[in-house]
């Protein structure tokens, strides 16, 4: 029985459970709601939940664990010669997977009978051609040994899924029966149902922790693989980036960090003055009408997807900078450049800086302004000498948050900055960043055994640590500052 059907059966069981549990509670109370401990709804829900939740949890765990167990028990069956021939164990396993999947597909499409698929021999049938017919192309002809492993894979899978169906159904029915038997007018159904719901709520909240753990662990794990193949000091202190898929690559992070920092600095040079002055004008000078128009307009910039900025950099800003600045000044003739990516990223960050600074400036108590104005200072003097220093920690926090955005930004630099890892001062030269290299090392055909692919995880971890550090510092500053005036 497929997983979908199993799910459906369990849900139907739950619906029946709801109706029957409710009815039983009613019957026990002689049809009088007042004699029940809880509202009738809870009796039904209790039966439904008790039959569904343990069964679903078992199914979930089973679906994760079963492939692991099967894979582990298949490995000893594969002869060493086959592994050597294919190059690596996981390549054999993926072949096994494809063949088994192809045979199942052939049976379900009706081009093979069940028995034929089970007793198939490589000598008699052209397995590759038969599988290609049902839309499962194989890279090479099928070895008899691999076919044998694939057959036992299929057999184990079949037994596994039968066992799972039986176990899950048994648990569901068992839960149903248990909860149904317990239903009577004294039973505190609401307590149980609410406890279950609360447990579900806690699990939902825990997903945030799981995500962070997943991010950190997955990157740590692969980064360890990387450093097993490539010395860490060459990664952190190497000044050349020259991946070479035949091996012997130079994977130094310094040029990438240089590009990232250069782009981010240009972006901040654009975004901070504009964003800050816009925030000051909107919060201190603009009347309500200007404010109600200009503020949302600037904030639209924050809602535009980064791919749009990337395209803007690629087809508008890049050629413009090249034709009017770089070429006349003799500084290069590349449309992809640090300046292109930096300026466009700066535009993207304007609303980020302006709305954060706006909040912070507004949080400065009015009494400070009134005091300064009352002493005869002009508005700009008040802003420069009273409001700005008071808001400074918060504004620094906002700038740090913007910097962390700039460092982690991907699409603008992929389309605007170029792919050449270079350490140069010329802003009209193409350079590259950490995020660009993560994308280029992980898209396309990747081999998760080579350092050229695994380096992306080390880059990702570095990026994660840097942005996390910036964020934590920024949040601490902002929080501290907020408390000051509250």
């Amino acid at each position, binding site marked *: 029985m497929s997983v*979908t059907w199993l799910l459906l059966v369990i849900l139907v069981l739950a619906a029946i459970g709801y109706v029957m549990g409710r009815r039983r509670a009613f019957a026990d109370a002689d049809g009088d709601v007042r004699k029940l401990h809880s509202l009738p709804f809870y009796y039904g829900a209790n039966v439904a939940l008790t039959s569904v939740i343990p069964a679903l949890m078992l199914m979930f765990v089973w679906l994760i664990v079963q492939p692991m167990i099967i894979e582990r028990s298949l490995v000893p069956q594969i002869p060493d010669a086959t592994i050597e021939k294919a190059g690596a164990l996981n390549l054999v396993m993926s072949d096994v997977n494809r063949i088994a999947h192809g045979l199942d597909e052939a049976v379900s499409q009706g081009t093979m009978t069940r028995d034929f698929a089970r007793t198939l021999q490589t000598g008699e049938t052209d397995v590759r051609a038969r599988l290609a017919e049902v839309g499962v192309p194989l890279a090479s002809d099928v070895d008899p040994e691999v076919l044998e492993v694939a057959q036992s894979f299929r057999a184990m899978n079949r037994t596994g899924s039968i066992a799972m169906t039986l176990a899950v159904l048994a648990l569901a029915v068992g839960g149903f029966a248990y909860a149904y038997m317990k239903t009577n007018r004294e039973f505190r159904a*609401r307590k149980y149902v609410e406890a279950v719901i*609360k447990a*579900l*709520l*806690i699990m*939902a*909240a825990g*997903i945030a*922790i799981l995500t962070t753990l*997943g*991010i950190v662990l*997955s*990157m740590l*794990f692969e980064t360890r693989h990387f450093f097993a193949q490539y010395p860490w000091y060459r990664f952190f202190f190497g000044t050349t980036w020259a991946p070479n898929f035949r091996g012997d690559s130079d994977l130094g992070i310094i040029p990438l960090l240089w590009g990232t920092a250069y782009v981010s600095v240009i972006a901040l040079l654009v975004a901070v003055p504009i964003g800050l*002055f816009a925030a000051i*004008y*909107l919060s201190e*000078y603009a009347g309500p009408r200007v404010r109600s128009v*200009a503020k949302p*307009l*600037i904030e639209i*910039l924050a809602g*535009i*997807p*980064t791919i*749009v*900025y*990337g395209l*803007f950099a*690629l*087809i*508008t800003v890049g050629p413009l900078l090249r034709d009017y600045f770089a070429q006349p000044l003799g500084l290069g003739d590349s449309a992809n450049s640090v300046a292109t990516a930096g300026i466009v990223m700066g*535009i993207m960050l*304007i*609303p980020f800086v302006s709305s954060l600074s706006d909040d912070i400036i507004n949080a400065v108590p009015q009494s400070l302004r009134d005091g300064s104005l009352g002493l005869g200072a*002009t*508005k*700009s*003097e008040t*802003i420069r000498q009273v409001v700005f220093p008071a808001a400074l920690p918060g504004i620094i926090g906002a700038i740090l*948050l913007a910097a962390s955005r700039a*460092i*982690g930004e*991907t699409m603008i630099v992929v*389309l605007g900055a170029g792919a050449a890892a270079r350490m140069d001062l010329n802003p009209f030269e193409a350079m590259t960043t950490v*995020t660009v290299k*993560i*994308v280029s090392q*992980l*898209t396309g055909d990747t081999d*998760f055994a080579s350092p050229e692919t695994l380096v992306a*995880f080390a880059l*990702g971890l570095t*990026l*994660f640590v840097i942005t*996390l550090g910036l*964020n*934590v510092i920024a*949040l601490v500053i902002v929080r501290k500052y907020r408390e000051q005036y509250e």
Partner: protein
Amino acid sequence: MSDSTHDLPPGSGLPIAPRGDRPLLTELDPRTKKRYAAERRFKALGLTAVCIGVLCLVVLVSSVLRQGLPAFTQTFIDVPVYLDPATLDPDGNRDPEQMKSVLTFGYQPLIAAGLERALDDRGLGEQVTADEVAGLISRGAAAQMRDYVLANPEKLGETIDFNFVANGRVDGYLKGRVTMESAALDSQISPEQLQLVDKLRDAGLIEKKFNWAFITGPDASGNRPEAAGMGVAIIGSAYMMLVVLVLALPIGVAASIYLEEFAPQNRFTDIIEVNISNLAAVPSIVFGILGLAIFINWAGLPQSAPIVGGLVLTLMTLPTIIISTRASLKSVPPSIRDGALGLGASKMQAVFHHVLPLAAPGILTGTIIGLAQALGETAPLMLIGMVAFVRDFPDAPPAGLFEPASALPVQVYNWTQRSDPAFVERASGAIIVLLIFLVLMNTVAIILRRRFERRW
């Protein structure tokens, strides 16, 4: 103003002049003038900054519109084709199964002949070869005609008017992207062909019209930009939004309810809160790495599948939804909870029966904004294989969720990476569609907030 300045002689050059010399209220002293000028400069700087911000928006949107709007119209060529039974049905029995043995190569000469005849009728095309004429029409035309013939075998022997998509270069010529000079250097089209296009246009055989295939059709290979569409990408994006909605909304709301209404003040709660605010600031590409490592390599889900994209985007959207849901739960006044509790409701009942419905508009608004963010996200999807070239439409969910698909923003990226400049126009066109979706979603969010949000 200190007392000492009063005693100074007039005209001594000090910034503040003595009182008797001038009407105080109508003329400003130099220092005040300077201060006021500084004030005006400062204000002007602020205004400039605001104007630059708005100007950036205008330039950005207008550049995308200018580049992308032509993508929605496409050049079509009318060709009356004689469906020659001798070529298309060599066995003569009108059986579609046997007619399938004639491949698209068999159809191409017929199209070329049809176009030549149409030109001859108007006395235009004597100096052009059949190859050159056929080069004006998209390479997909033969396949389009073959499908038609196989579906309507009874039409053999008749002359049917086909409306073929013109080659991308012809389209570019009529839109001003391709010129006679560039055509002279181009192996795919010659200036003579372009002169022929001019004649065809004068003869009314070529027309530009709205191109639905751009929105609904699948992607096409790099040498057929005229046939590339974003149908698969729109479907893929829609599937992912479905996954995000189904997963992120319940999980996000449940997590917020716990954190806002039930969580005790302890270490566990603190860790969750710090985690959520950090996740909101993690670069999106890191989520892509997570998806690749966990969902594809570890859990064995298929590459380029909407389900993986949806899961990754769900994790990215969760913090947004949780933050906005908590804000709207917080805005429901405690008196509502107290009232419910006072009438004997349990805490759970008070939350689910009273607080949650009152917070629903705010939650929906936050969800829509989160979805809009997820819709435009590109980088993580590239890492989970969505950059692959996908031509086939996925099936209906749930099976379709596991089949390869593209996504709108990734499709844009894909098109920017192709060498033919016609794809830049397509990419901008796809962005217009993406922006329309975003504007619609945000409008709905704003309307929801305006109409249903209550202020206590």
